[in-house]
């Protein structure tokens, strides 16, 4: 329970630091913050073993940290530094740490879904008992790869879990306008159980994930979990610079969600209710802050890659 709390705080603090760096003009390109959604990756990854696999999305910092990646090379990658996980080749959209079971992090919406199914297939063929999780957003459910992969995974009883992080928006469109029906019900017709959970309550996410992991590991096949969640920030941080005065959600909605549905606050209450002292939780906050500060320092100190490195790594 404390580890869950720590991970959620880590994701949150990590991204706060990233945003400060972004505001300072130190982050090239865009940043896709997952603040507000911390409970989903943490709840899911808590149900996994370290050898299990995940695939992250474009909004993937939470996925990767929850799976156990090191904040130092993560932050370095975001800044495009040579000590980044991908040596600056990829940036925040595509951070991969193979060692902790991150199969890939995909900038193409929906593309990661079959790729993770493939990892699950390799594991099934090898009989190694691993489970794979594909994370994707509400928007990704409109891509054909989602349906194609459910059909395949159902046919082959792949040891995998489909986790939809429904934050109710895809870029600047509301899911209610582009995603027909209810996402968790999409799997039923393939014979895959579908469940809807409150993605702001890490315990609920964990419970659903644990059941699905058990099912997958036992050979019974995949599960679809829809976790209802919310993002505090824009599609990309500082989106107003791109979309000007266009508004796709109400400021009041964001405000209310932040006030009432912050997964970290909610989990803190649960911890306190379970008799854990506020001191202990504050101690975690502090330790995480130190860890993130260290990561920032590390990333800032890391050199940029040599330009010629651009010509490396294409072929084995």
């Amino acid at each position: 329970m404390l580890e869950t709390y720590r991970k959620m705080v880590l994701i949150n603090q990590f991204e706060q630091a990233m945003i400060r760096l972004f505001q300072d003009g130190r982050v090239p390109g865009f940043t896709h913050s997952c603040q507000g959604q911390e409970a989903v990756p943490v709840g899911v990854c808590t149900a996994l073993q370290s050898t299990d696999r995940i695939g992250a999305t474009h909004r993937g910092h939470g996925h990767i940290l929850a799976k156990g990646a090191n904040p130092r090379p993560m932050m370095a990658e975001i800044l495009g530094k040579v000590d980044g996980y991908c040596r600056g080749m990829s940036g925040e959209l595509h951070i991969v740490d193979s060692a902790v079971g991150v199969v890939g992090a995909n900038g193409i919406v929906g593309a990661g879904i079959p790729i993770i199914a493939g990892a699950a297939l390799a594991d099934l063929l090898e009989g190694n008992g691993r489970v794979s999780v594909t994370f994707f957003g509400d928007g990704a459910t409109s891509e054909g790869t989602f349906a194609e992969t459910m059909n395949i995974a159902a046919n082959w009883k792949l040891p995998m879990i489909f986790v939809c992080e429904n934050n109710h928006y895809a870029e600047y469109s509301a899911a209610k306008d582009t995603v027909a029906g209810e996402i968790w019900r999409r799997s039923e017709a393939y014979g895959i159980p579908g469940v809807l959970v409150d993605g702001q309550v890490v315990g609920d996410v964990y419970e659903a994930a644990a059941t699905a992991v058990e099912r997958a590991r036992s050979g019974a096949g995949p599960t679809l979990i829809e976790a209802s969640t919310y993002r505090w920030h824009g599609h990309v941080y500082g989106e107003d610079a791109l979309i000007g005065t266009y508004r796709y959600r109400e400021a009041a909605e964001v405000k209310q969600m932040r006030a009432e549905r912050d997964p970290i606050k909610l989990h803190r209450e649960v911890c306190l209710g379970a008799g854990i002292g506020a001191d202990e939780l504050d101690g975690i906050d502090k330790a995480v802050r130190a860890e993130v500060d260290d990561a920032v320092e590390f990333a800032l100190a890391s050199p940029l890659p040599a330009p010629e490195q651009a010509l490396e790594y294409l072929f084995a």
Partner: protein
Amino acid sequence: MAELTFLAALQLALREELARDPRVFLMGEDVQCGVFGVTNGLVDEFGPARIRNTPIAEAAMTGVGLGAAIAGARPIVEIEFSTMTYIAMDMIVNQAAKTRYMTAGQATAPMVIRTAICMGFNAGPQHADTPHALFAHSAGLHVAVPGSPRSARGLLKTAIRSDDPVVFFEHLSLGATKEEVPEEEELIPFGQALVRRPGDDVTVVAFGGALPPVLEAAERLAAEGVSIEIIDPQTIVPFDWDAVFASVRRTGRLVAVDDALPTCSMASEICATVAGECFESLKAAPVKVTRPDVPIPFSVPLEQHVLLSADKVVAAVARATGRSALATV
């Protein structure tokens, strides 16, 4: 004449054509918002039925556009980033491109597929390809790659009125470029090159996002007494070969610049065709300038290393006037 940015010129073309022809409509992810500043605000003028946000489903959405085109509408399908055209590849090269041919003219596919090329913004390897050669290779498509605001507006209007499918690339690196655009309607015919700068020593063919470094190189070369003629084909299918041949026959030297990957690129096509048609006129080997054969990396020094630059163009022109080896600089 009004001075407009590239993005504003594109919006002008859309607005004019939406106003002119009620069959024209625009569909794509977040087109009502206008992520790159091209389509924003149009929904207020033309309503959500014609400025149509779509789900994230590039294959089906392009198919929907094609079906609408066959049924008599004039769809403009926006595919957010150029790499997402891959998802719709079957719909573009195996469906839209072949519709008229396969039906012996019973059906046509008057649709425009607009897509943004996002290089130089540290968008990382999966968002930044320049796949125009893929569409040029596949028979049945027109391919437009405007290189300035006036071209953008005039070509997009022509694309929308074309009875054939057009793939239309919008280089975001040109987004803030400004140029005088005529107040009155201007349709720029496809397959008609522009001489962006006249010159005598070397013919340099370049289009789209390759133009700014080439124009910069021209200034620097001029200062050193080398005069290059910059030919912008504006559309790569159809291609204005006559303009290129005429220039090469005069200068005797060719540099083909394409801010794409080298193998089977438009730069290769131009070098091959000129070598074939103007062999006797060539005083030196044709020189091809492209990006090196790797994706676009993320980090600033890495991305800068692979992008085209005036330096690389200058080096290529030097080679074309000096020694005769082709190399992708």
